[in-house]
């Protein structure tokens, strides 16, 4: 009876969580849903006379694997959320049809395979679950076990190899960077000096406060556009800063820059601006979104309807 209650509760929880995993727009939510499923399953393992597996499930899966997932999610953009518009014709329809059919068939197929009551594991786990498992693993399945150790080492090595990136050009020294800045200055007139930090000549030593110019005006260069955009959404952006920024945008546009304007940014919603910084990338000024593009990196490919065809 206890098992039944546990099962029905956890079954509902895990199925709902699994559906949530599939249908949530944000990857982080998906990850959390997966954690729920895994924990539910761990309990179900425990209920089914598999305490060791239940422990391993929690330690390895929920503990290690899920953390790994969250790390990677963080690397590729934690706030990114998928558009759930399907781009491949018929994909979703057929996927769901096949999924339902598969579930039904599988359920009918193996669900009815056993009619007898479970034998239970009492006979098989005389000396306790873990020692019995250990006996099996280190006797009958010892070869497979050894192979898995090789597999894990290979996986570790593989991850290192894949994550490693060979340097194709010598690392730029500070001298090189400085020279580069002045060359650029000579060619385009771009200010070689560091950008003004926020709060310089300001009343607040805060990052959302713009620097003031000697004449007391706002320096548009020091405004972090992201923050400004956020504040514009919330309506807390001081009007004087908004005016300065709009003026600056107008100037830039007339000069031929194609930087997204503040207004456009605000409309287009959160960007998938990458959070992974290449180790050898020139440290771009944090408040210059257009610098990220000019630093020579490939912008994310625009995702469009044509792509899916």
């Amino acid at each position: 009876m206890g098992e039944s209650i546990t099962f029905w509760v956890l079954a509902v929880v895990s199925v709902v969580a699994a559906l949530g995993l599939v249908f949530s727009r944000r990857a982080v939510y998906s990850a959390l849903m997966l954690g729920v499923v895994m924990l539910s399953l761990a309990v179900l393992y425990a209920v089914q006379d598999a305490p060791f597996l239940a422990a391993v499930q929690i330690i390895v899966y929920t503990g290690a694997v899920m953390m790994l997932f969250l790390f990677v999610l963080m690397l590729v953009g934690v706030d990114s959320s998928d558009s759930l518009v399907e781009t491949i014709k018929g994909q979703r329809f057929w996927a769901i049809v096949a999924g339902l059919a598969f579930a039904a068939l599988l359920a009918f197929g193996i669900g009815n395979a056993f009619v007898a009551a479970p034998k239970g594991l009492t006979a098989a786990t005389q000396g306790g679950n873990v020692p019995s498992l250990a006996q099996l693993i280190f006797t009958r399945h010892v070869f497979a076990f050894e192979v898995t150790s090789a597999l894990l080492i290979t996986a570790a090595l593989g991850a290192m190899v894949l994550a490693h990136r060979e340097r194709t050009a010598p690392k730029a020294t500070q001298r090189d960077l400085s020279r580069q800045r002045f060359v650029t200055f000579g060619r385009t007139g771009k200010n070689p000096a560091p950008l003004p930090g926020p709060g310089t000549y300001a009343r607040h030593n805060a990052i959302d406060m713009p620097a003031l110019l000697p004449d007391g005006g706002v320096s548009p260069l020091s405004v972090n556009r992201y923050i400004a955009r956020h504040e514009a959404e919330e309506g807390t952006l001081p009007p004087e800063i908004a005016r300065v920024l709009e003026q600056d945008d107008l100037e830039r546009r007339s000069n031929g820059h194609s930087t997204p304007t503040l207004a456009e940014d605000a409309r287009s919603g959160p960007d998938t601006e990458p959070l992974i910084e290449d180790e050898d990338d020139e440290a771009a000024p944090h408040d210059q979104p257009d610098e990220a593009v000019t630093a020579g990196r490939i912008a994310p490919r625009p995702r469009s309807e044509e792509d899916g065809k």
Partner: protein
Amino acid sequence: MEPAEFIQHSGGAIGVAWLMIAFPLVGAAILLLGGRRTDRFGHLVGVVMAVASFVVAALAFVQLLGFQPGERRRLIPLYDFIPGMAKVGLLVDPLSISFCLLITFVGSLIHVYSIGYMAHDPNRRRFFAYLNLFVAAMLLLVLADNYVALFVGWEGVGLASYLLIGFWQHKPSAATAAKKAFIVNRVGDFGLLIGIFTIFATFHSLAFAQVFPAAHGASQGTLTAIGLLLLVGACGKSAQLPLQSWLLDAMEGPTPVSALIHAATMVTAGVYLIVRSGAVFQGAETAQLVVTIVGVATLLAGAIIGTAKDDIKKALAGSTMSQIGYMVLAAGIGPAGYAFAIAHLITHGFFKADLFLGAGSVMHGMNDEVDMRKYGGLRKVMPITFVTFLIGYLAIIGFPLLSGYFTKDGIIETAMEHNAVLGWLAVIGAGVTGFYMSRLVFMTFFGAKRWEATAHPHESPAVMTWPLIILSLGAIGLGAFLIVGNRFMTFLAPAVGAPEELPTFNPFSLTGLVTLALVAAGAAFAWFRYGAAEVPAVAPRGSFLTTFARRDLYGDALNEALFMRPGQWLTRLAVFFDNRGVDGLVNGLAAGIGGSSGRLRRIQTGFVRSYALSIFVGAALLAGAWLVVGNL
């Protein structure tokens, strides 16, 4: 009288009869393989080999005469040619030895003549090689004791003829004529081949010695079929209707070739074949009737063509056709005609060779001009040529007591007895012969000189005139020698049989007199038109009949319309069909597969999710199938 039994023979000149073939063959091999090294003496080798062959033939003839008439069919086995089908051997009997003598004797004379005629040709050696090759093949043809070896010789002479007609192959007309001769001959050979197949299928043997004695046992239909098929072969080789068209073009070859191959010997091979296969023809009356009809038709057609030609060699070629028509007519009659056919063949060999060589001599003196309208009055400048030519002319028109008189008259008399219609047609042919031969002689040797300004006619050298003289002697006396007293008929009887009642020669028969009168009328008409009157330098247009004769009775036009054009059309169609139809089908199939693959590969979208979907659907289907199968 029935033909004699076949007797195995060894020893003596007959035992080495193969030498007759071997000598010229070796000569040809030496001259062809020796290359330019043999240029200097090549012609002598050729002549020596031909003469050596003649000597063997003569010795064999003498030895053959030593046997009783009933023992004169001697077989000399040589070797197993195609096991189970044909053993090769030689058959020396009166028929074959007569041919051997004619071929080697006239052949030797023409070899000698060619030394002079071809003296200025850079390829004289090759010419003699081909001539030797021809002699060897012709001898194999007549000496063979079975149909396969005969066919080998038959095609061998065809090859030699091809090579010699096209000897001046830089001339497109010569090359075309050679090719035409070979192909038309092949049409005849096709018939001969089928005939041989039928013989083998019927008798399971191709040896004369086995087939002829058994021939009477075969059905009438089979024999008729064989006879008609052999006749097709004979028509091809002997330029009989409807396969006559090649002979006139064959005159593109050097004149000695025309004399030897296209007058004296090769073209008579058809007559030989019919006479040799007498045992088959005598069992098939329909076949014999067709043979006589073909003979008469050709003798008239050849004569008509001869009346209109201005080219001296073509006129003679028409005459050759016509004379062979006589022979075929006689050969179709049966044993009564065989002796006359062969006798006429031999005398014709002499006088026609004489005429051709005479024509060659004239051409030699006239810068190879062949148009008789540019001759005239040559009797003064070429006396020997003129006299010998005159003898040949008198012999061919059947001037009393000359060769042609006896042999042709014999044929006409026999034909008259056999079938009056055929006989009278043959008489008319004789009359036309009188006209066109007289025309030829008058235009060439009489009348005004119509030479080109550059021509300096002169008598030919002795090496050319002596053969003419010897041949003209034959043209004078040979007929009387063979026919009077039925000497030749008795001689041939062991080989071809003879009528029970030997004919008697009657010089004053009605037919003979009518023939003579017609010939005289023809000659007189020719004198009136061409001897006494002025001959225009350019041929007048003439009536429809003249055009008809000039254009070889539209034979070429007919061939062209019936075979050549549809053939070319068929060829183009077949090539088109092969490229577009058969090959197009295959290539179309390939293109179709390629195209559908190109479309099919679109499935590979590159989207991993599509692939995963197909895997997943597949897994679902498998699960379903497993359930269905498991529950059955």
